[in-house]
C-alpha cells in the first residue's frame, strides 16, 4: 500500500479523474440546458384528443403537448389504472384562455379514446389571451368581403396577415419615434415650466423673466400639441383600416364547439404545424429565435422576446467594467508601487481580500443605502429639486446597479493586477529609472503596458462574476418590465437614472414569478442558455484581446 501512495502514477490518475469529473459536470449542465432550451421553439404538432374519465365524463381537447411525465403511484391507484405498469400523462396546451379559463390541461394516457393530428389544425400566437388553437372558418377582409371557402381562406389570410403586419409596424413606428419624440419634448418643456415656477418661487429669477419664458414655452407646447394631435389622427385612421380584418376560428373542446373572432391585427403568428415541411419548420424556428433575441416581452414576460433584458445586461456589465477596472488598477498600483511597506499596507490588503468574500446581497444593501439614498438623494436635492418628491437619481437605476456591482468586482481586479505587477522583473523598473524616468513615468511607460495582459485577466474575471450576480441588482434598479431602454436616440443618449431589465433576473421572474410555470419552463432554459452564451462571448473577446497583447508585450525572449 505504501508503494502505491509513494508511486507517482496513482496521483496522476487521481488528479486526472477529478479534472475529468469536473469537466463532465460542466458539460452535462450545458447539455441539459441546451437540450431543454433548444427544443422550445420547435413547432409542435397539434393533437386532437378525446378521453373518457373514470366517472364517464368526456374530455375533448385540441392543443400541443408541452410535457410528458409518469403518473404518480397514488394517482394510478386512485384512478384505478392497471397498477402493474407505468402510465404516462400529457400536459396539453389548449390555449383559448378567454373561453376555457385555463391555458393547460393534463390528459391521462389510459383514458385516451382517440388521438389524431388533424392536418388543418391552426395554432395562433396572439397579443392578448395567449395562444389559440382551432380550425379556420372564415376571414373577414374589410366590411364587404368574407372568404368562406377554407382552402382559399388560408392563403387569403396569409396575405392579409402580411398586409396587416406591415401596417401595424408603420403605426408602431409613428407611435414610437414621432409621437414618442413629441412626447419627450413636451415632457421636457413641462419640466422646464415646473423648474421656472420653482425658481420664481425661490426668488432666483424675477417675475418678468419668468413671464417671458413661460409664454415662450407655452407657445412651443401649443405647437407640439397640435403636431401631436395630427399624428394621432393619422394613427387612428390607419388603425381603422386594420379593424376590418377578422379571423373566425372554430374551437374543439368540451362542452361544445364554439367559434371565436380574432382581429388579425392581434395575431403575431399563425401556423399549421401538422402540415409543415422541414424547410418550413426551420424557417419557423429561425423566426422564433429572431423574435426571442430582438423583440420585447409579451404576456408578463411569458411570451415574446428578451431584447430589453439582453440590452440591460450588456450595458450594465460594460458600465461596471469601465468603473471597476481603472479603480482596481489604480488601487493595485498604489499598493504595489507607491505604498511603503508596513502595517497600513497589510491592513488594506487584508481588507481587499475579505471584500471579495462578502455576500453579494450585502453589497446590494450597501448600494441601496449609500448610492441610492445618500448619493442619489443628494443629487436630487442639488440638481433636481423641482421634481421632488418624485425621485430622479434617488431611486434605483442602471447607474447605481452598475456601481454596486463594480464595488463587488473591484477586489478581483486588484488581486489580478497585483499579481501582474509582481511578475514584472525588478530589472525593468531599474532600467527605466536609470535612464532618468520618474517613478510615474516608469509605471506609465514600462510597467503598466507589460502588466496589461494580467489586468485583462482581472477584467475578464470581474465581468464574469458581475454578469452573473442578480441579488444586488434586485435592490438597486432591476425591474420585471421596463418600458424604455437606458439608451436611446434622445439627448443625452445615456439615461443612467432609468431602471432596466436583466437576463438573470428575467430567468428568476419567468421561472418563478409567473402564473403558468409549466408553460414557461422551456423559456427559462432558453434564457439561461442565452445568458451563458452572452457571458461566453464577452469572455472570449477579452481572452482574444489578451492573447494579442501577450505576444506584443511578452516578457521573455520566447
Amino acid at each position, binding site marked *: 500500500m505504501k508503494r502505491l501512495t509513494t508511486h507517482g502514477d496513482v496521483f496522476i490518475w487521481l488528479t486526472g479523474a477529478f479534472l475529468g469529473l469536473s469537466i463532465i459536470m460542466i458539460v452535462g449542465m450545458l447539455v441539459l440546458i441546451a437540450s431543454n432550451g433548444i427544443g422550445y421553439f420547435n413547432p409542435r404538432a397539434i393533437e386532437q384528443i378525446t378521453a373518457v374519465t373514470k366517472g364517464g365524463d368526456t374530455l375533448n381537447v385540441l392543443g400541443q403537448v408541452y410535457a410528458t411525465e409518469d403518473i404518480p403511484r397514488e394517482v394510478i391507484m386512485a384512478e384505478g389504472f392497471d397498477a402493474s405498469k407505468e402510465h404516462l400523462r400529457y400536459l396539453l396546451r389548449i390555449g383559448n384562455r378567454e373561453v376555457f379559463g385555463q391555458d393547460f390541461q393534463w390528459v391521462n394516457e389510459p383514458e385516451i379514446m382517440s388521438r389524431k393530428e388533424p392536418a388543418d389544425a391552426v395554432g395562433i400566437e396572439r397579443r392578448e389571451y395567449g395562444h389559440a388553437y382551432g380550425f379556420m372558418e372564415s376571414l373577414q377582409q374589410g366590411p364587404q368581403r368574407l372568404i368562406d371557402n377554407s382552402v382559399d381562406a388560408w392563403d387569403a389570410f396569409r396575405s392579409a396577415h402580411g398586409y396587416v403586419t406591415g401596417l401595424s409596424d408603420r403605426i408602431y413606428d409613428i407611435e414610437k419615434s414621432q409621437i414618442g419624440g413629441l412626447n419627450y419634448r413636451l415632457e421636457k418643456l413641462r419640466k422646464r415650466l415646473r423648474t421656472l415656477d420653482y425658481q420664481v418661487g425661490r426668488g432666483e429669477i424675477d417675475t418678468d423673466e419668468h413671464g417671458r419664458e413661460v409664454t415662450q414655452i407655452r407657445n412651443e407646447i401649443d405647437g407640439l400639441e397640435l403636431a401631436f394631435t395630427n399624428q394621432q389622427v393619422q394613427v387612428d385612421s390607419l388603425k381603422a383600416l386594420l379593424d376590418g380584418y377578422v379571423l373566425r376560428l372554430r374551437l374543439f373542446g368540451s362542452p361544445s364547439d364554439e367559434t371565436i373572432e380574432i382581429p388579425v391585427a392581434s395575431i403575431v403568428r399563425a401556423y399549421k404545424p401538422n402540415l409543415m415541411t422541414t424547410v418550413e419548420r426551420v424557417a419557423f424556428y429561425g423566426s422564433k429565435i429572431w423574435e426571442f433575441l430582438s423583440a420585447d416581452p409579451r404576456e408578463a414576460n411569458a411570451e415574446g422576446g428578451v431584447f430589453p433584458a439582453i440590452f440591460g445586461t450588456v450595458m450594465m456589465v460594460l458600465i461596471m467594467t469601465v468603473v471597476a477596472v481603472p479603480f482596481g488598477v489604480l488601487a493595485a498600483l498604489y499598493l504595489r508601487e507607491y505604498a*511603503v*511597506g508596513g502595517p497600513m499596507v497589510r491592513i488594506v490588503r487584508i481588507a481587499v481580500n475579505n471584500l471579495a468574500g462578502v455576500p453579494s446581497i450585502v453589497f446590494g444593501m450597501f448600494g441601496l443605502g449609500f448610492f441610492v439614498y445618500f448619493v442619489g438623494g443628494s443629487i436630487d436635492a442639488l440638481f433636481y429639486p423641482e421634481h421632488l418628491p418624485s425621485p430622479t437619481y434617488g431611486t434605483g437605476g442602471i447607474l447605481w446597479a452598475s456601481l454596486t456591482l463594480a464595488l463587488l468586482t473591484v477586489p478581483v481586479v486588484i488581486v489580478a493586477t497585483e499579481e501582474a505587477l509582481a511578475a514584472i*522583473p525588478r*530589472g*525593468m523598473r*531599474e*532600467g*527605466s*529609472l*536609470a*535612464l*532618468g*524616468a*520618474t517613478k510615474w*513615468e516608469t509605471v506609465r*511607460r*514600462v510597467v503598466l*503596458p*507589460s502588466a496589461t495582459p494580467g489586468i485583462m485577466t482581472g477584467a475578464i474575471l470581474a465581468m464574469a462574476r458581475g454578469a452573473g450576480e442578480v441579488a444586488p441588482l434586485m435592490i438597486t434598479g432591476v425591474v420585471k418590465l421596463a418600458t424604455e431602454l437606458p439608451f436611446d436616440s434622445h439627448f443625452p443618449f445615456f439615461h443612467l437614472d432609468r431602471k432596466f431589465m436583466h437576463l438573470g433576473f428575467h430567468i428568476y421572474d419567468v421561472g418563478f414569478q409567473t402564473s403558468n410555470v409549466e408553460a414557461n419552463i422551456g423559456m427559462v432554459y432558453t434564457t439561461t442558455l442565452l445568458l451563458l452564451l452572452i457571458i461566453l462571448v464577452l469572455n472570449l473577446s477579452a481572452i482574444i484581446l489578451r492573447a494579442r497583447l501577450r505576444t506584443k*508585450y*511578452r*516578457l*521573455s*525572449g520566447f
Partner: protein
Amino acid sequence: MPIMTEAYPPAGPKIMVENLDLWYGPSQALFDISMQIKPQRVSAFIGPSGCGKSTFLRTLNRMNDLIDNVRISGSVVIDGEDVYSGTIDVVSLRRNVGMIFQKSNPFPKSVYENVAYGQRLLGVRDTKVLDEVVERSLNHAALWDEVKDRLHEPALSLSGGQMQRVCIARALAVGPEILLMDEPSSALDPIATAKIEELIVELKQKYTIVIVTHNMQQAARVSDYTAFFYLGRLVEFDETRKIFTNPEKKQTEEYITGRFG
C-alpha cells in the same frame, strides 16, 4: 594595455568622492571611500564578491535611493556639484550618468522604442529626430548594422550580446557624459564579451566610463585606472599598469596573483 589618447582630457576629476560611508540599516557596507575618477578614461573596480564595488557604483547615480534603509554620509561631487545635496535633481543626474546592468534589461518593446525611450521621456515626438537619435546611438553601440532591418522587432528576440548593446545604445541615446557598467559582460559568451570590450575602448573617447568587473583580465585589458576593493574598503586605486605589475599594498598583490578570489 590601452594607450593614453593624444587629445588630453580637461584637467580636474570628473567624479570626486570624499569620505563616503554607506549603511544598509544597522550594518555598514562602505567605509570611508575617497577617490577621483578622471574624465574620458575607463576606471575599473575589482575585488572579491560582496566587497561593495557594485554598491559603490550605484551611489554614483543614486540608484541606492531605491532600496529602503540605506544611509549615506560623505560626498559625491560630479562636475562640481554634490549629488547628495538637497537641491540636486535626481532625474537629470541619472540622465547625465547612465547605467548598464549585469543582467541586460531591455524593455518588452521594439528595438527602436527601447533606444528612443529616453528621448520620448524628454517629450520628443518628431519621428525624424527620433530616427536620427536611434541610428546614431545604435551606431555608437556598434549594433546598427546588425539590427537596422529589425528595428521594429521586439528587443527581447535578440541574442544576449545584442540585448546588452541595445541597453548601451539606450543609455547613450539620453546623452550622458558618464557611463556606469555593472559587470556588463558577465552573462555573455566570449565573442560577445570581446565585442563589448571593444566598444568600451571606443566609447571612452567621448565618455567617462566606470566599470565593475569580476574578471581581472578584463580590467587589465580595458581600463586605464583600477580600484581594488575589499570588504567595503578601497584598498588601492592607481593606473592599471601599476596595479597589475607593481601594486603598493600587499592585499592587492595577493588578490592579483590569485591568492584569494
